[in-house]
Every structure is written in C-alpha cells, then in structure tokens.
C-alpha cells in the first residue's frame, strides 16, 4: 500500500496507470467534504481577526505596546509557545515519517498525510510568529548573506533549518494538493515528478527536524547561569529532540482521535495503540537519561521551591503515558490512548516552557507573565492554524478513507 511508485521511472504514464494510481490513492485518503463555514469556524475566524488587528498594532507601535517582554525576559510566549511548542506539535509529520520511511513500517502510512498537514501549519505559523517577534524584521534577509551570517550562532542553524523545513513540508504536501485536480495534466505530471524524488525529499524531511529540534535546546546553553540547573545541561539538544519526536507521535494520535470524533468516522485504535507504544518506549528512554543526568550533576531537584514543583509536574506528565501504555490491555482502550497523548503533549510543552521561561531567571527582580494582547495574538495564530486545517481536510484527500 504505497502511494509512491518509484520503480516506474518512465516519463510517459499511461492513462490506465494514472487512473489506477488515482483509485489507489482515493482508496487510502479522501476529502471529508461538508460545509466549511460552520459555527466553530466562525468563532475561529473572530479570534483570527482580533489577532490580526493586534498584529498590525504591534507593527505600528512596537513590541512594548502589546507584550510584557522586558530586557530581563526578552523572549516570551511567542517564542516559547508559537515557535518551541508550535514546531514540536508540528513534529507529527517528522515522527511518522521516521516510522514509515526509515523503519519501513507502512502500516502507519494512512496517517502520513494528516500528520504532514498539521506539520505544515505548525511550522508555517511558527515562521509567522518569528516575524512578529523579531524587532528589525526588515533586516531578516541578512541571515542569508554569507558576509553577515554568523555560523557560531546556534540561532542561525535554527532559523535556516526551520526555514528550509517549511519549504520541504509544503513540497511533501504538494501531492495531496495535486490530487484534487486529477484532470489537470500539469498537476499529474508534477505529482509524478515529486514521487520520483520521494527518497530525497523524505530523507531531507527527516534530517532537518533532527537538526533544528535539537538546536532549539542548544539555544539555551549560552544562557548559562540564567537557566536553573534543573534544565541547564549539555544534554539539552538531546532532550529537545527526543521530546519533539514523542510529541510528534502524541499529536498524531491526538489529532486522529479528535478528527474521528468531529467528523464521525471510525477510530484507528489498533494502529494508534502501536504508535503510542513507540512513544512510551522513547519517553522511558528520555526519563532514564534525564534523571541520570540530574543525578550526575547533583541538581537541586527538590530544593528549588516553585521550580521544583514545576519540575515534578513536568516529569509526572511524562510518566503518565509510560505507565498507561505498559499494560497491553489499556493500549486497546481509546480513552487511555487519548489520555496518554494529551499527557505527553502537556509534558513536552511544559518542558519547553520550563527550559525557556519558567526556569529562566536573568537576575532577581525580573518577572514575566504574557500581556492579554500577547496571548490574543498567539490565540489568533492558533485559530488561523485550525481554520486552515479544517479547510484542507474537508476539501483535499488528507484523512484516511473509511473502509467498509
């Protein structure tokens, strides 16, 4: 059951073969259909509108007008939520691609498309958030000039790599978009060409997140003493990478269950169960190394006051999916799969907040809590993301086709 047929390298494809490919694909994925403009869609549109108005205000009046950012806390929720958590939630495409293409587990192939779709929006809107956050956005092109770019800067790796991955994700989504126009010869030809390039695209699509998700952790090494020893470690890149992959599995399961509920479609329980087991094993590896590192560094796990509480909550959330999914019985129960996924998403998100905001203290006297306008802009971005998702699953063959 593969969408891609690499072995047919000939350029002229017969009509019969095309029709067969189309039928095969429709067998695997189908648009949900139905009305686009529903009540939830309108609520999202209202949120998006408020967000966009506040974004315009930010460009007119500066960052101080809409955010509570300060010289002590120069990075707030736009970086921590929109970029760090947003791209980790966008790791579904990455995590599933590792399973399908690198580990040859084609049973997960049906969820590839919806995973890639969430990744496209997670990453594209993280890119938008970066443009809102940087103060001198008109100089952004300097990142691409060889005589200004600083290759000692971890942020360069993160920025270039995320930028490149957004492009790769859209390329990965292209076949889905092309399929909507089966009669269009150019769309069909483009699809055929993309399919021949699949090994390259998929390999780059796995390499790039491996690089930048780990580098997001490396970013904080240079903050040194400003980050609490509960999070400041040379293993930051490793923890960020591993938790991004587990969050990728979790978001795929989460999204599959929610869209089955929302569009009244059958659940993919057995497959999600196996996916969640992969997640649980990786989480266990993460926890073992995390605690070994803390022990070796003799980090003040229980004596850091509020930070200790946040640390314990974070790691309890990590523990939930491990405990839930070790027992084979619970794995077949959709409620526990959902609970495990939600817990994993919260754990990874809290880890990112802890490592960038909560555990970060530049010097006593500085405080940060996001301003209402700052939160509204983030909600607006999330609303745009959800609206785009709804549009694509209803109009394009993204979700797995229902099998009688």
């Amino acid at each position, binding site marked *: *059951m*593969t969408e*891609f047929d*690499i*072995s047919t390298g000939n350029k002229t494809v017969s009509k019969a073969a095309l029709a067969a490919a189309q039928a*095969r694909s429709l067998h695997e994925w189908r648009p949900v259909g139905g009305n686009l403009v529903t009540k939830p869609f309108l609520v999202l549109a209202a949120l998006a509108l408020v967000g966009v108005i506040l974004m315009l205000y930010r*460009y*007119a009046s*500066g*960052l*101080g007008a809409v*955010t509570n*950012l*300060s*010289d*002590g806390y*120069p*990075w707030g929720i736009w970086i921590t939520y929109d970029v760090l958590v947003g791209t980790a939630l966008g790791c579904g495409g990455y995590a599933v691609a590792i399973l399908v*293409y*690198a580990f*040859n587990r*084609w049973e997960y192939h049906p969820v590839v498309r919806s995973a890639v779709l969430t990744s496209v929006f997670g990453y594209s809107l993280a890119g938008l958030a970066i443009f809102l*956050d*940087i*103060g*001198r*956005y008109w*100089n952004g092109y*300097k*990142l691409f000039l060889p005589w*200004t*770019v*600083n290759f*000692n*800067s*971890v*942020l*360069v*790796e993160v920025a270039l790599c995320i930028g490149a991955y957004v492009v790769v994700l859209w390329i990965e989504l292209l076949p889905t978009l092309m399929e909507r126009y089966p009669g269009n010869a150019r769309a069909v030809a483009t699809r055929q060409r993309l399919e021949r390039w*699949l*090994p390259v695209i*998929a*390999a*780059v699509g796995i*390499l790039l997140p*491996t*690089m930048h998700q*780990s580098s997001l952790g*490396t*970013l904080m*090494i*240079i*903050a*040194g*003493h*400003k980050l609490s020893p509960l999070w400041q470690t*040379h293993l930051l*890149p490793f923890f960020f990478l591993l938790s991004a992959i587990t969050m990728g599995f979790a978001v795929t399961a989460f999204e599959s269950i929610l869209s089955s509920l929302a569009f009244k479609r059958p659940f993919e329980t057995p497959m999600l169960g196996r996916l969640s087991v992969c997640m649980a094993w990786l989480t266990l590896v993460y926890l073992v190394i995390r605690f070994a590192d803390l022990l070796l560094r003799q980090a003040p796990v229980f004596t850091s006051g509020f930070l200790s509480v946040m640390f314990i909550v974070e790691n309890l959330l990590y523990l939930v999916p491990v405990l839930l999914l070790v027992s084979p019985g619970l794995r077949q129960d959709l409620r526990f799969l959902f609970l495990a996924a939600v817990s994993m998403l919260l754990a990874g998100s809290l880890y990112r907040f802890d490592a960038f905001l909560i555990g970060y203290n*530049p*010097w006593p006297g500085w405080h940060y809590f996001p301003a209402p306008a700052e939160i509204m802009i983030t909600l607006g971005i999330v609303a745009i993301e959800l609206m785009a998702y709804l549009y694509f699953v209803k109009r394009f063959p993204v979700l797995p086709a229902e099998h009688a």
Partner: protein
Amino acid sequence: MGLSRRDFLKTAAGSGLALASNLNPAPVLARELVPRLPDALGILYDATLCIGCKACMAACKKYNHLPPELSTPNSLWDDPLDLSAKTVNIIKLYKNGTGLAKDQEINGFSFVRRFCMHCVDPSCVSACPVSALTKDPKSGLVRYNKDNCIGCRYCQVACPYNIPKFQWDQAFPQIVKCQLCDHLIAKGGYSACCEFCPTGASIFGNVQDLRKEARRRLSLKPGEFADYPLQRVDSQHTTRRQVTPYLNHVFGEREGGGTQVLMLANVPFDKLGLPLLPPESQASQSETLYHTLYKGMIVPYVVLGGLFYLIYKNTTGHDLP
C-alpha cells in the same frame, strides 16, 4: 521487513560510529579559550575610590546622545533606576544594616558601576545570528551595528551580565549598549565616563596596564598613602589618598573567560549584583557543543546519506497492492 531492519541497524550503526568518532575526542575539538588581545582597551573601576557623584553617568549621556530618564515625580533630574535603552552606564548602591561604613559588607555601603564588561569572549557576539555585534580585532571592544541587527534579542538571552537593552517602545527598535565611546577613541579621545571621573574611580587604558594597576592596588597596605592615576592609567595626573582595604579579587580577570572592564571593591561582587561566573565563557560552552555536532557538516551529511539509502530501499523494494 527483516532485511530492512537489518539494513536500518547497519546504517544506524554506521551513522552512530561516525557520530561517536566525532564526539569522542571532545577535548581536542573543544573550541580554544580566547586569549586576551595585546592592544585591548578597557576600564578599571575601583569602588573604594567611587564617591557616587554620577559624573560618569552625566558624561555618558552627553557624549552618547542618550535621553534622560525622569523617574522622580517632579521630572526634574535624569534619575534612571537601572540600565535601559536610554542608560548604558549606571552607579548603583549596595547597603547593609546601618549602612554607615563605606566599602564594608556588614553595616556598610558600597557603590558599584554597571556597564558593558567588553568580554574577552563575548556571549552576545557568539549568539548574534547576523554579526550585528562584533568584537574589534584590535581594541577588543564589543560594538553594535544596527544595519545588520534583526532584533531577535538572543544577545539579551546570552549576556551573563544582562547588558544589551532593547527599545521596546519603538516601532523600529534598536539594541543599545555601552561601546566604550569608540567614537571618541577613533578621534584620539577616550571614554567620557573616565574623562569626567573626579576621583580616579574609573580609569581608561590598555587592559594589560589596567591589570597591573589593579594588582598594584591590591598589594598596597591599608592605611598608607598612595598615588592613584586620574582619567587614564598612563596619566601624569594622580591623586594621593589613604589606601582602604580591598577584597583580594580583580573581577573580570577570569570571570566568564575574562572581561576588558576590571573591577575592584571591598564588598563581595555577588553582593554588588555581579554574577559569579565559571572561568570558561558561555560562548565557548555553546560553540564547543554546537561545533562538535556540526563540525564540517560531516554528521548531518552522513545521517542524510544513511536516511536516503534506507528510504530508497524501503520505497522501491515495497510491492504495490
């Protein structure tokens, strides 16, 4: 499946070996600590000489064209409460108990001057993605170029002293920090704060001379009379005064890889609001880890090759339904 898994393990082992061989000689790969430049320029601030007159603050604002910060209710004086995008140099006060005795930790007080330390191995320069912050190869001064800056504020996250400040109230903001009056140095002058310091608490000069001067002061006996240069370390103008005790610590000689601004005081520096940093700079920690992973892009290319091989095998070897 079995074959593919074996292939995967083979490739994974290959990549792992490449990665391990890259990681293993970590001390060899570790970025060398940056040595001090022979012609580095800096400032020696001696808190025991400082009388808190803030002449340096007034001079700094004047010569760097910075606006006043009116924090008092009647808005009469430039009275900044902390460093900001409008204030790149500030005199602060440490006070304990009765606060009567100058330069004493208990029941005493001490002034402390805060401004850019001009690190030997600056975090901000390492962090800046677009080389908007650079270290002068001769004078070692850390400068800001707004024409490159994208306003990402990673320099603020990276700086252990929280020195770079951002214009939060501007639609077209800049980073603002002390550049040691490099515009005056270019014209043969020197930092305004030192030129206008009446007591010699801040003196400008070559960092090697400043270190010698700092060491000389630490070797003086409290109670005896000694000469202290005014304005510049090589100045002919000196002031004669009775030596007061010093803490045996030149802040900036080793902290975070060393700084070109050196400080003397008799109150522990962490009490004065300075972070106690390890001798290794944060920039070298970050770059060592980062360049170990990305040295010559070898590891990424090996991983990419392995992935391509695997995916090619997995996609072409797979039968159609």
